[in-house]
């Protein structure tokens, strides 16, 4: 019993309440927000170290025993996701404070942002499926509010689609939970594998597909992605960065959990996942190529890159899973950075539309570097972090002999590079457009937050060896059977 592992879910909720109470003072809200996230970062580091020592740590909230109470469980996968997520939240909050806009205008920004943090942390730490549902709702409701903060027409339109789709997914999730409980008598992730053994294999597969579908909507995988490029770009930049960088990855995390819990050896579903992964990669990147606006291009990439993670999961091997975990960790950083840089470009030139921005490299060379590094990393150019992630995935794919997927993923990388080049050529190269705002300095906090994230992503590339080893240990905990048979 280690009660402190529940803190990442509890602390931001308390801080959100405090943030409402001091709503009149933006300075106090900022101190609470930054302080809480810094404390959480420390906790996450501790969790990362302790889970590596103990494999799995649990605690029961409210003193009720496992199947009835609210169980918090932390293993290596939760710890690494938590650390990356909280680091991201902290950097984006600094960026949002520098940017002002929605953060300065609305009392609600800080409290809702902190509830979002609580929801994400809870999703990573929960030990049963029903609490995963609750965690998803906490983070989704916060995201609804953040997406529509300001109430502009474009936001309301995009927000409506997003809320309806998410609500549909939640209802399906709830219904699947009811059916699962009726069939097995438990929703505890630790009890489920044994309870599922008693079920008919076909029924087990139905449950697996139901849950993968639900989480697939949240992760925006192939047939279920259409809401994402429509809704994300309309939020304030800092919010889009968190959503695209992190929220869809919570969906992928849930997919990994459910697959390893109730179908670790179901190769039929694994093959379905591989096909879906290939389609997600290809369709996403084609969508990105056809767009003309920085945030929308990046949103389609958010879809495309999900395919890589599902690819790693679909292999159902320790190497594949470890590669997927490494990929998620580095990708969250890279994607968030790209959105933040996109926001800086919009801030500097007044628009994110490629037809109307030119020659940023001449006027703002630093911004060019901040974009170039994560962009090349996203495409998987060595020696950046995206290359490390893709290399691990391709390596896992080759050892599982999934040649088609390896081919598709390499081709998609080249197309990713192509569309990144489109932003580069459209916004950074060429003659600077005459623009009054072009000379005003960008807020230091925004640039520093983006710069730190670029440094972190380079750090991931440099420390790839130990991080991959950690991801491999995480994957071995998730797939104990496959782990013992692997050489």
């Amino acid at each position, binding site marked *: 019993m280690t009660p402190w592992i529940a803190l990442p879910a509890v602390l931001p909720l308390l801080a959100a309440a405090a943030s409402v109470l001091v709503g009149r003072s933006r300075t106090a809200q900022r101190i609470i927000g930054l302080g809480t996230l810094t404390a959480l970062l420390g906790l996450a580091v501790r969790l990362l170290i302790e889970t590596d020592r103990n494999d799995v740590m649990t605690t029961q909230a409210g003193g009720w025993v496992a199947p009835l109470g609210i169980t918090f469980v932390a293993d290596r996968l939760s710890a690494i996701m938590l650390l990356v997520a909280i680091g991201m939240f902290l950097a984006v909050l600094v960026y949002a404070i520098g940017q002002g806009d929605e953060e300065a205008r609305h009392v609600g920004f800080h409290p809702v942002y902190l509830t979002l943090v609580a929801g994400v942390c809870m999703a990573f730490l929960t030990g049963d499926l029903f609490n995963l549902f609750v965690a998803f709702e906490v983070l989704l*409701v916060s995201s609804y509010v953040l997406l529509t903060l300001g109430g502009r027409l474009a936001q309301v339109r995009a927000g*409506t689609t997003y*809320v*309806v789709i998410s609500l549909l997914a939640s209802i399906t999730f*709830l219904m699947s*939970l*009811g*059916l699962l409980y009726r069939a097995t008598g438990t929703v505890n992730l630790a009890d489920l594998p044994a309870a599922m053994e008693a079920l008919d294999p076909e029924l087990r597969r139905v449950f697996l597909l139901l849950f993968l579908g639900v989480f697939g909507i949240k992760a925006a995988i192939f047939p279920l992605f259409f809401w994402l490029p*429509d809704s994300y770009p309309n939020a304030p930049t800092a919010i889009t960065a968190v959503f695209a960088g992190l929220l869809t990855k919570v969906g992928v995390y849930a997919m990994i959990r459910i697959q390893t819990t109730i179908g670790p050896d179901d190769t039929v579903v694994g093959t379905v996942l591989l096909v879906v992964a290939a389609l997600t990669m290809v369709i996403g990147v084609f969508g990105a190529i*056809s767009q003309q606006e920085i945030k929308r291009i990046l949103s389609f990439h958010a879809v495309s890159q999900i395919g890589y993670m599902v690819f790693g999961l679909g292999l159902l091997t320790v190497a594949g899973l470890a590669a997927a975990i490494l990929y998620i960790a580095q990708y969250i950083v890279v994607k968030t950075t790209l959105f933040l840089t996109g926001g800086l470009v919009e801030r500097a030139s007044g628009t994110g539309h490629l037809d109307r921005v030119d020659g940023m490299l001449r006027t703002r060379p630093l911004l060019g570097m901040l974009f170039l590094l994560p962009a090349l990393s996203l495409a998987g150019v060595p020696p950046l972090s995206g290359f490390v992630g893709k290399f691990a995935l391709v390596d896992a794919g080759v050892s599982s002999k999934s040649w088609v997927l390896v081919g598709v993923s390499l081709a998609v990388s080249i197309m990713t590079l192509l569309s990144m080049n489109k932003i580069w050529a459209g916004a950074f190269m060429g003659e600077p457009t005459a623009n009054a705002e072009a000379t005003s300095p960008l807020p230091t906090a925004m640039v520093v937050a983006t710069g730190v994230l670029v440094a972190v992503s380079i750090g991931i590339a440099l420390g790839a060896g130990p991080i991959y080893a950690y991801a491999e240990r995480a994957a071995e905990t998730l797939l104990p059977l496959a782990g013992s048979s692997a050489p």
Partner: protein
Amino acid sequence: MTTVFAALAGALFATGTYLVLQRELTRILIGLALLSHGANVVLLVAAGEPGRPAFLDGRDDPSAFLDPLPQAFALTAIVITFGVTCFLLALAYRSWVLTQDDTVQDDPEDVRVRQEPDADIERSGADQPTIEAQDR
């Protein structure tokens, strides 16, 4: 009894799905409400056969009691969907204030991509003049 509940849940899901597929926001809203009711009925069925005692008073065998967990699930779910439905209502009202229209709007970028003349070579020959005329 379970059959009745199953049929009820099925009917709720069917009408809910039909309404969600409509274009008017208010209908979508009612559809979502029906769907969530359907999910709650499924949760109630998950509690097992009805008619068993729900309170513990020391006279009956504890193992014969109704499973309370699905009811706790349903209660949580009702609260959550209630909150989200309220939020969606507020959004629908905001949308009405801004546009005086209850239908869900098209994505402007989708419309742009659809109208790009060279997006479809076969159509571009026929459609190009009209789109250019629209631009003018």
